[in-house]
């Protein structure tokens, strides 16, 4: 299998994205079908690649025949392809939902933005070049701004503006970090930076790591870099939020893990990230726990279903960051697994919420009361997503949260307190999800303003099937997650695959 064709994962959606405005002249619906087809191709192809590398081992896709570390390369491993597949899957599901949804003015342009965002997020995950990652992150944030603003309400522009300010400062910091790394090491290749990171002196390395954190944690929705979150989520369409959380957030957390563990981790197999006074393990743990705590408690007081899900999404990202901060193999397995589970469950929740908002004409959970009695399937599927996020046994989130708890308890010490705080916050989470479900089944009469669409039901059925399949038979994913976590835990495979040498100090 020639893995160089993996570049199609960027090429196809990028070409399609810029063709769509022309196709849109022929028919808005046609543009949606084509966007769906492009993302479906991406999903199927990256799934195929994932299965291939899972058996044959990681591979590198080289661009323009410039071998790394000189040219840009894509790194294809169980970890990167697992998340690329997840991202394309969520993107495909949203595109599928949009096939049946009502058209809006400038619809084909929104499809373009979706394709760009998903393409960029996938490329952030796959790329092996740090500057390339920066470029794709820029595309990602611009795409996100378009997505948020596309709803056209006052709050959309406010959210989009807030996001662009945050993302602007973040990518600025990122450029700083990349500049420093390039200035010190003279390379932009991630594997080579990972190999030679100990050559950087501790003060500069600490600063680089901090700048990376400032840049990446904006996309990863980590407090206090996530203050853009509620406005942007409230401002955009609910199904677009599935992209914000399942695509942008996933790419952000993946990039954080990759940069902190593979690039900046000092020791092989034991990623203690100390740089002078900076202990990034602890910084990540503290930020993660803060995000979980504040996110869950803030979600408790919200009435708007989109904002509730937004805060919840931040909190789940906090759990993953906490796992990354702990940094053991178990923790990383839990984190990787949870990131996947969250992307799938939250996509289901947002798409289902979008359908509920469309049906009832409101996003206020008090006014959605009684909807579950009118459209039972929709409410039950929303429940499946909620159970998945909460981590009820036999739903996907259960297994990943189990591993995070195990890792924290194993490390002991302050992690004990941290996991207690996280579980305490999870109480709030269980409560507000169950409150939504309870309200949906209130014996209140509600007027159904619009009918649901078949494509939307198909989309959420597919997501629910994934949630239940992973929940009941998690061993189906076990192998991939194990090798993905192993790759994060031990960077030597990454470096030796890309650079073709096994030399590590």
């Amino acid at each position, binding site marked *: 299998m020639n893995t160089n064709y993996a570049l199609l994962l960027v090429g196809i959606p990028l070409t399609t994205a810029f063709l769509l405005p022309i196709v849109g002249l022929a028919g808005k619906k046609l543009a949606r079908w084509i966007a769906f087809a492009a993302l479906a191709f991406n999903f199927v192809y990256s799934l195929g690649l994932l299965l291939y590398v899972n058996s044959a081992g990681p591979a590198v896709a080289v661009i323009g025949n410039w071998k790394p570390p000189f040219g840009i390369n894509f790194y294809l491993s169980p970890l990167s392809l697992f998340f690329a597949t997840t991202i394309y899957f969520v993107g495909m599901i949203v595109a599928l939902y949009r096939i049946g949804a009502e058209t809006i003015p400038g619809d084909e342009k929104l499809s373009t933005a979706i394709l760009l965002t998903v393409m960029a997020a996938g490329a952030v995950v796959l790329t092996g070049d740090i500057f390339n990652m920066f470029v794709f992150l820029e595309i990602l944030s611009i795409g996100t701004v378009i997505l948020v603003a596309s709803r056209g309400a006052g709050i959309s522009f*406010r959210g989009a*503006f*807030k996001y662009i*300010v*945050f993302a602007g*400062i973040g990518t600025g*910091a990122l450029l700083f970090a990349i500049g420093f790394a390039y200035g010190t090491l003279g390379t932009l290749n991630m594997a080579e930076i990972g190999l030679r990171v100990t050559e950087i002196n501790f003060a500069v390395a600490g600063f680089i790591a*901090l700048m990376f954190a*400032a840049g990446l944690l904006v996309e990863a929705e980590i407090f*206090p870099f996530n*203050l*853009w979150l*509620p*406005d942007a989520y409230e401002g955009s369409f609910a199904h677009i939020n599935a992209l914000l959380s399942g695509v942008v957030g996933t790419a952000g957390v993946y990039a954080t893990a990759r940069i902190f563990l593979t690039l900046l981790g000092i020791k092989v197999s034991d990623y203690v990230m100390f*740089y*002078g*006074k*900076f202990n990034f393990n602890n*910084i990540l743990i503290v930020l993660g726990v803060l995000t979980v705590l*504040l996110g869950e*408690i*803030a979600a*408790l*007081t*919200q009435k708007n279903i989109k904002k509730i899900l937004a*805060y919840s999404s931040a909190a789940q990202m906090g759990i993953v960051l906490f796992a990354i901060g702990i940094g053991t*193999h*178990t923790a990383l*397995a839990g984190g990787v697994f949870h990131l996947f589970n969250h992307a799938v469950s939250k996509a289901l929740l947002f798409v289902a919420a979008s359908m509920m908002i469309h049906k009832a004409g409101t996003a206020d959970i008090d006014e959605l009361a009684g909807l*579950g*009695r009118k459209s039972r399937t929709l409410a039950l599927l929303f429940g499946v997503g909620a*159970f998945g996020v909460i981590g*009820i*046994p*036999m739903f996907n989130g259960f297994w990943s949260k*189990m*591993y995070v*708890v*195990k890792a924290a*308890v194993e490390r002991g010490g302050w992690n*004990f307190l941290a996991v*207690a705080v996280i*579980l*305490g916050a*999870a109480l*709030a989470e*269980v*409560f507000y999800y*169950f*409150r939504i*479900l309870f309200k949906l*089944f*209130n*014996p209140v009469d509600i007027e159904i303003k619009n009918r649901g669409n078949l494509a939307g039901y198909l989309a959420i059925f597919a997501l629910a099937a994934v949630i239940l399949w992973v929940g009941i*038979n*998690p*061993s189906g994913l*076990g192998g991939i*997650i*194990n090798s993905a976590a192993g790759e994060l835990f031990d960077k030597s495979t990454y470096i030796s695959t890309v650079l073709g040498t096994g030399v590590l100090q």
Partner: protein
Amino acid sequence: MILNWLTVSLGVALVALFVGKRAKIIRWTLFALYLTFLSWMLWTTYGMWDYRELYPIFSLAGVNFYLSFSITPLRWFFALFTTVINLVIAIFSIRKNLEENDELGIGTLWILLAASNLMIFVANDWITLFIAWEIMTWTSYFIITPGWKNSFRAANYYFLLSMFGAYSMLIAIWWMHALPGVNSFDISATISAVAELWVKSPFKAGMILALVLAGFLSKSAVFPFHPWPAEAHAEAPDDFSPYLSGIMIKYGLYGVVLFVAPVFIKIAHSETGSTINGVPVYSYILAWIGAITAVVGTYRAIIENDMKRLAAWSTVANVGYIATALFILTPLGITGGIFHIFNHAIFKGMIFLALAAVKFRTHERQMHRLGGLAYKMPITFLTFLTGIIAAAGIPPMNGYASKWLIYQALLVSKFPFLTLMIFVASTGAFMYLFRALHSIFLGQLPERLSDVKEVPIIMQIPMIIGILTMMFFGVFPGYALKPIGEIVSSMGLTPIRTTPTTMFSVLSVVDATKVGGMFGLSFLIAFVLFLVGKKRRYVDMLDNYTAGQNPKDFGLTTEMYHFAYKFYEPFANMFSNIKINFKKMYDVIAKDFNLFGEWISSLFDSPTIVSTMVFVGTIVILIIAGWSG
């Protein structure tokens, strides 16, 4: 085998979900049939004490998750009696739910709940137990509140306390998993590991036990988790309350028998750390917590006016007795505790069924609005009467036998003050039980209720079964004590000596049949006296309260004859200075959380310039923190 029984429930639940609203009777009959099937299958497994089932589900990063089931005397006994009682309740539900609107979700979830109930009892490792525990928690939550506003508020106390407990348990499970030499979720392995850890580090072992106990005792509503039954049991669907109060509240106590008591017994045998009369100090403290629960529950039941809340508080009190008996750790204590778990499940189930029957016909829960129903609903009255006789521990009903054992256990182990507490609580039980009987079934029948009829025959059948069962185990306690004896010997203790009718303790011996016979005889004599007595005049129910005066002169209506409102007001006034209210405490915590949440979301909603300053400020602070020094 067991996994198949459990998977059948999924199929049954699916069928129940799709038969829709029109065929209610099919759904509930299916439920009863499924329970019959389970009961029969469990009955046939008696004696298969080596039976094991193991199914790998997930294995990652060196941790292997299994679903594993086993049958031991303890597991078999609990699984069987809970399933059979559930079956009896389900027969009642068939007719009761024909007139309900929200029974679709309730029925479907209850089928899953029944399966998870079985799974809790046959679980052989912590993960299986935890999975079953969580399924039980969420299904019961949505049964208690299928969208109803009142029960939502009520169920939240139950749910949040349960989830708090479950999460504590989760930390403990992983902690035990990480103990040296365990590396599995096997319950018996963790028992010895925790007992060994006790020798090295009592603090760590104590923390593990505290976390596990938080899970178990929050489910069983032991002090300070006691406020939830009064809310949840009262607001739950009427036919679900018997299940909630009779069976579900025992899961935590089952956990105590399964895990906590064996650990304490091991600790007591290893003779490390201080003990009081042979009981480890922690266990002794827990016995006191049980006694406090009993007293608090009794007091709250006495001053309650809502009949379902009264019964719920009575459950709290009974859980207190059981906890006290179990934490004494002697064979007598454990036997008495388990026997009372069994008996309480029957009599409290029957009391709640009788209340459900009353509510089915009258739609009333406030006791002062009821009265004089004894003649209108004789079978219900008899059920309630038998139930409260059993609850008060009067022979010849089953509650007597287990309470006798509990007192014996406390006295034999020389705990006079604990005995006193239990005695106070038990005496208080007379006060509220009689009050409930009087207010609902005796006294004057309000005119509103003059055309109330007895419940349909299908709903009477379970109640009649209940009456007979309560009498049977009151007269022949040995038939329940035999399997309980096997449980006690499987825990490594010497079971107490029993015959089908006689219970032996160190202090005394009681032949339940003789005691029951004496009562039967005295009833017979009273009946003979009644027959041979002077001819009597039958008067109208309202005739005997006015002493010949015309109540209209005093502005009274017949509705107001019935003395039931604020029945124990003087008693309540005696204790009105006590202001400790745990429910309020939980309310305040919830409110503070909400305020904090509003503050946080105001931070998130702040203008762009402010949030940008927070963002940049954080980076600057981190840089400065790393720079200095």
